[in-house]
């Protein structure tokens, strides 16, 4: 349903004229996120306070116009892609860090605050915010909450859901309520736990209380270089099986390094089959012992070379290379398709072999760069969408890889979310009853399709169908994508 002029005027009355965008040339930067999906909203609202967000939601509800909340638009499952005919609530102006409470290890922030800024604000107190998605220089806390964002260091510290204590939240009725809070064990159902990761379908977060952690005393970075991928993935499985939990355990294969090195000069060996970028943290003693154990395992499994003792600058370059890997893949092929699947860590070598086999069978080049310690795979299928039939092959290959993950006892998404793209895969891992219990949550919140309809679950309402058609055209990611 198109947004009428009268609604625009109502929105303007709430937030002020300059904070409602509705001319096509203004809307165009709000039509995409990190995926290829695109849809133009009818209007974009930039509220300046939680109360304004609530008032905007009430207007949208009254007129039956769908609402999509948007942070930085770096998501990888279309979470911030608007519904055609809907309005976008952009959190751009809600970008204040309201409080850093070092005594209690808490930060209170607005949803538009950039992830990395929380750690920067906490740094003078020796604290930081642990979840570190690769997009952390751009992505916002609101988006992180919506997607339950992960990151390399989530292996040890957990994902966003483990670091959010409370949320101020606009309900579908347009009420402003608090879920959870600053103090431990708030009474009642854990609604924070279900809103985190709900992909913007239950309401809009207007403030978040985050847990800050003390910076570890020692961090040791290890680069383990292997001739082939198989050895590297075996090493990952053995490290976990021996009960060692590094802070981060990332794998980059040769194709990824080929893309990254000329571009970032991060220090990855160009001729290796795969590297593991490993970090162990804690007390000096603990970190040293873990580092030795990890190196021992890598050596035993045939690592060609182990590099340690990086300077802070070198370490930063290695991570810059890792976190910008996705952007660099654009150098290898005109298009690429990112997959996000999870497998039990003991099955990693087997599934990864299956991934390469599948890609070979489909005649596709693949670059793997992923959170190996969590079993969270990110195969990136490289192709040229102008080549006839290439897109079809990519989608078929992607689906086969997802099946491999599920058959190994894994999941269809580890951190990117379901969005539009994967809602048809949900029945692979959940029964109809499982899914109807999830859908019941939406009903309990009384969303009536107000927030991000069509995402996560299929819907019969307009915007899901539009995107269903678009889904078939998935070809490459947008300019702001990170994994």
């Amino acid at each position, binding site marked *: 349903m198109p947004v009428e002029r009268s609604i625009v005027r109502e929105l303007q009355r709430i937030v002020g004229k300059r904070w409602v965008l509705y001319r096509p040339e203004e809307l165009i930067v709000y039509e995409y996120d990190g995926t290829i999906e695109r849809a133009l909203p009818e209007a974009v609202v930039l509220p300046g306070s939680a109360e304004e967000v609530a008032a905007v939601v009430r207007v949208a509800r009254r007129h039956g116009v769908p609402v999509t909340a948007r942070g930085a638009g770096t998501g990888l499952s279309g979470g911030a892609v608007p519904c055609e005919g809907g309005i976008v609530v952009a959190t751009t102006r809600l970008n204040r860090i309201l409080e850093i409470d070092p005594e209690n290890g808490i930060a209170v922030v607005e949803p538009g605050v950039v992830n990395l800024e929380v750690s920067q604000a906490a740094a003078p107190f020796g604290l930081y915010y642990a979840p570190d998605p690769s997009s952390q220089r751009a992505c916002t806390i609101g988006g992180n909450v919506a997607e339950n964002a992960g990151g390399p260091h989530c292996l040890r510290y957990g994902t966003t859901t483990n670091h959010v204590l409370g949320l101020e939240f606009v309900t579908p009725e347009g009420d402003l309520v608090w*879920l959870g809070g600053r103090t431990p064990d708030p009474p009642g159902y854990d609604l924070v736990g*279900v809103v985190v990761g709900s992909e913007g379908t239950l309401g809009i977060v207007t403030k978040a209380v985050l847990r800050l952690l003390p910076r570890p005393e020692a961090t040791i970075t290890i680069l383990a270089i292997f001739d082939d991928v198989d050895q590297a993935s075996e090493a990952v499985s053995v490290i976990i099986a021996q009960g060692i*939990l590094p802070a981060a355990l990332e794998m980059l294969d040769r194709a990824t390094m080929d893309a990254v090195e000329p571009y970032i000069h991060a220090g990855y060996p160009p001729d290796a089959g795969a590297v593991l970028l490993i970090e162990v943290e804690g007390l000096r003693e603990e970190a040293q012992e873990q580092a030795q154990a990890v190196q021992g395992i890598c050596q035993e499994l045939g690592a060609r070379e182990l590099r340690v003792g990086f300077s802070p600058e070198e370490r930063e370059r290695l991570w810059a290379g890792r976190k910008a890997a996705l952007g660099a893949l654009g150098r290898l092929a005109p298009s690429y398709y990112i997959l996000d699947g999870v497998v039990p860590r003991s099955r990693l070598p087997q599934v990864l072999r299956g991934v390469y086999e599948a890609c070979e069978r489909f005649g596709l080049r693949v670059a793997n760069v992923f959170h190996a310690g969590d079993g969270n795979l990110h195969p990136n299928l490289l192709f040229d969408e102008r080549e006839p039939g290439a897109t079809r092959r990519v989608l078929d290959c992607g689906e086969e890889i997802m099946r491999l993950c599920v058959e190994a006892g894994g999941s269809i998404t580890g951190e990117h979310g379901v969005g539009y793209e994967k809602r048809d895969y949900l029945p692979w891992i959940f029964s109809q009853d499982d899914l109807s219990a999830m859908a019941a949550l939406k009903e309990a919140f009384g969303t009536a399709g107000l927030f991000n309809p069509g995402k996560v679950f299929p819907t019969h309402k307009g915007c899901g169908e539009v995107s269903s058609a678009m889904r078939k055209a998935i070809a490459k990611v947008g300019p702001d994508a990170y994994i």
Partner: protein
Amino acid sequence: MREGTLEARLLDVLGRDAVVMGEGVAAYTVDGLQPRAAVRPATVEQVSELLRLAHAERLAVVCWGGGTMMGLGNRPLRYDLALDLRRLDQVVEHEPADLTATVQAGITLASLQERLGRHGQMVGLDPPYPRRATVGGTLATAVAGPRRLSLGHPRDITIGMRVVLADGRVTRAGGRVVKNVAGYDLCKLYTGSLGTLAVIVEATFKLYPRPRAEAALFFSFEGAEGACRLAREGRRRGLALASATVQRQEGAYLLLARLAGTERAVERSALELHSLASPLGGETVAGVMDRWEAAMAAPAGPARGLTLRWGLLPARLPQAMERLGDLSPSLLVAFPTVGTLYARWEDIDDAAALMAAEGARRLAREWEATLTVHSCPAALKEGLDVFGEPPSSWRLMRQVKERWDERGVLAPGRFLGRL
């Protein structure tokens, strides 16, 4: 449904050895209420059948594990069946190489830890009385002991669940991998729901390696400030603290610090805590009896005494402890890095307990804390909601309860706001 019919239907679903009627049901008393029958299913299918029956007949069902926390919660509005899950005590799958395990709800913590310990692993659940406490009960009550400091909250380590809904449908949430964002995370909703939304029959956890070395240190302080500060400073420095408890004893405040990790990390952490303690006025003492389990337990049966639980900002704890210390509780125990505070009065009559609970509520407001009446005599529960005033999001909670359990089958009235 008449008793004779109920018995026949239960026997039909579960068989003779799984149905308790008559005198045997007294053991399943909750807040002075006895159920009409208790059932002890041995399979998930039986749990499902039972709930189908309860749903059709609108019978109220209260879940039981080891009974160590049955005193927690409002008095049920109705109570027809006690659902004892302790026969569901199997380890469904433990893949040591994945550091994950799937277990049935009725297994006790001690038994599970023993099984995992054979592979040098453990689950990060830390309820009081692990020989009796079950996995299901620990999740349903979301009870986290002092090791929460290092192991996290039950919600943080539970990656999957299998539950039976009020109408008997068996559903799953989450999965068996450590990272997963497929669909809504309903595990979070069920954790801490006190059996009012679904019956947890199975759970999957991410596990921890067992620490190679452990140590326990005890310090005595004149005031609560020093004891709490030492624990917080230890955590700030990243010392190998597995848990920290501050308890008041004979007018002094004792810090019980448990260390766990590698040998060298534990050794150095101990040295550092010792050297930090003296400037804060702490003296090393030996042989302290840890009281946290006694403070946290909320057993079934006629409850005596009053246990209150506050959730505070950690920095406010010392002041709160001193204030409560003046009121001579028989137990005063806090987790100084988390902000949880338990106070128990052993010999207290109902009138005094009610006054104390009301006074505690005022303190909670003053401290910007949450307050739960953790355990109290059944009579006291008539007049108060043990979980306190509903939060601003209560309406959403009510809608969740209504959507999940429209007919009031699952422990009706037991939750916050008598949901």
